[in-house]
């Protein structure tokens, strides 16, 4: 075997991951962001530390002193915001996001029951994977991230025919619809769906995403907007919620997704 004794590997290829690793403690970052109220703090902590089993009791406890909406927004959601910060700082990774979101949802379900007429979410998103395409992991992650950011999601699953997507959107009237495709030959379903929606006078952003889709394609049909990775989806949804149409999302795409 060719000897690699004494080779300085960093001069060949650099381990930037090790050079740049963030050894900051999650506790310290969380500390600064946690709510002051002890009951709400406890709720938020169950989310940050992903304690499925503790979130129920903590939520029930907090509901004794706090309004249900505050338990959600000042407790559970704040916990999730800390998780997002840890994720952005490369201290937490995807599995933590998934588990924290699950924890938060348990708490929200409990608190919501105490709200008359149920909680209002930021808005509704309809999601699907293109017909003929069996890969849905990206869509599933984006769905979790949307839910964690306060949106409700109708998840139509994978391999969904165009007509079913159109029918669901007309029925549910979401803020936006998303389609994911791993293959360039299945993603052509998106402009067809958009066309049909247009014919029905629906004019909402149609987010195209997934391995095969690039920004050029996503913006090649009316209503189409692009998302490159799951964490970009909530900030885009926020802009739509704030009144942006698909043209404005396109125009400001770099800025909107710059941090995500």
């Amino acid at each position, binding site marked *: 075997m060719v000897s690699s004794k004494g080779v300085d590997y960093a001069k060949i290829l650099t381990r930037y991951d090790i050079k740049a690793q963030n050894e900051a403690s999650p506790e310290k970052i969380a500390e600064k962001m946690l709510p002051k109220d002890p009951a709400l703090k406890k709720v938020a902590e169950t989310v940050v530390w992903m304690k499925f089993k503790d979130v129920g009791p903590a939520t029930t406890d907090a509901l004794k002193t706090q309004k249900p909406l505050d338990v959600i927004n000042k407790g559970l959601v704040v916990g999730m915001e800390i998780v997002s910060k840890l994720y952005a700082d490369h201290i937490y990774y*995807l599995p933590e996001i998934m588990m924290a979101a699950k924890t938060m949802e348990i708490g929200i379900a409990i608190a919501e029951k105490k709200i008359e007429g149920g909680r209002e979410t930021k808005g509704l998103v309809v999601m699907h994977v293109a017909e003929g395409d069996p890969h849905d992991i990206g869509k599933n992650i984006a769905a979790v991230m949307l839910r964690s950011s306060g949106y409700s999601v109708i998840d139509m699953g994978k391999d969904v025919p165009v007509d079913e997507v159109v029918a669901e959107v007309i029925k549910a009237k979401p803020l936006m619809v998303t389609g994911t495709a791993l293959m360039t030959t299945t993603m052509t379903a998106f402009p067809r769906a958009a066309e049909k929606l247009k014919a029905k006078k629906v004019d909402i952003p149609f987010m195209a995403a997934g391995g095969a889709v690039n920004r050029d394609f996503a913006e090649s049909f009316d209503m189409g907007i692009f998302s490159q990775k799951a964490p970009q989806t909530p900030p885009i949804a926020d802009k739509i919620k704030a009144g942006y149409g698909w043209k404005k999302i396109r125009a400001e795409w770099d800025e909107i997704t710059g941090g995500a």
Partner: protein
Amino acid sequence: MAATRFTKMAYSSPDEIVFGTAKSPVSYGFGIKAGAGRVIPELNYAPRPGTEKDPARLRKEYVDYISKDALNRAITLGFPDLQLETEWVSQMGDKKFAVPVVEGQAEIAEKFHKDFGINTAVRHTIPDQREAEEGLRTGAKKAKGVGGKAYPEALFQAAEVACENGANVLSCETMGGKELADYAVTSQDITAFLYGVGYLGAIDMEYVWSEFVSIAKKNKVTPGGDTNCSGANVSMFMAGGMMDQDVQKTFSAVTRAISAARTMVAMECGATGPDKDCGYEGPIIKTITGRPAAQEGKNCQCAHADLQGNLMAQITDLWSNESVEYHPEFGGSSVQCWLGSLGYEVALMNTAIATGQEKTLRDLYMITDRTRGPEGYMLAYDNAFKVGEAIAKEGKNIYLRAKAAGLAAAKVVKAGNDAKELGLTTKQRDVLNAIIKELEALPADEAKFAEYCDKKYKELVPNYNKKNYGL
């Protein structure tokens, strides 16, 4: 047909294994000899969106544009061999779309062979469109699309269409275990991966590949092999490059080793290789089976970037670009440009073989990426050999061998880190230690393991159903 398990290594030492030569070479197509002393470029491509709308247009895209461009460039650049790989678009589940493509590519491959003497072959890779929620086995619930046919039947029918109309090699990217793999990767749950990919995936592979091998043999087509693209590659891609890492790289390295125990089942059912390019578990499998390996790396940047671009060439027999969409470039069409890259790398490897320097070049490829990340480190041929040995030792039991693969990989990575050869971030090391602990705590008994997992993941994993695996 039952699977004949591999319980011994094909090679007696890692140093024996090198690119271009396999213990059991395979001949097919128009003069192609895989693993017989020369590396062969394998070009993969995707038609432009829109061309899948009608059969004539799709045939034109695959045959008159993609295949002809590629073969012309092979002549221009002087390549002695070219294998084409068509990964079927979903529309080709319909015979009307598939037959003209398969026939057309067979014709043009033969024409160039006759006109210029270039060796050619076409591999057809059938899409596995089965979905856990619709049923993975024949007689399952009828599925949407694909002419109203149930997916499992459609899968075998597609293989027949390929084999009857001119395929030289039959391959597939089977999806068995994917519902658990997706859960495992997003939740960093190594047991779920072991159960889904290592165990259920292996059972599903046997179900699919017994049938595939018999279809291929009936039609005198070479049954190539499979890959755990839907599991270990998802894990690898999500572990990302140097900075972007949704999944920890130590986790992804272990999933890769587990996937080897699954992918090799195709060969236990009679597949002869070459296996599929995107199976990065290939180096492990070659140590055990001695069958020709198709691999991809530095010249598949058109499709993705990973951290072992050079290393993957170390023991390859066919060298692939994974996939590129057909479109124009300054240097010709995209397939021509990437074929140029592929073919030049292959020529370098073949020069090394011809001058007796193949082991030196192999080692240079390997050393380049050896310490860049856990997955490359584990796949370095000496380490891959260790993982192979762990699998072969428990070869008879699909659960134990997959677990052994995962543990061996984890320990190889840990040892590399302990020896300060392989750097790890704190997080990568924490996850690695947790994996070792978790795998070691699993039952030694297959039935107990299966029972434990069934109970646990029934609750957690949407669409998981053990009936899909005949359990």
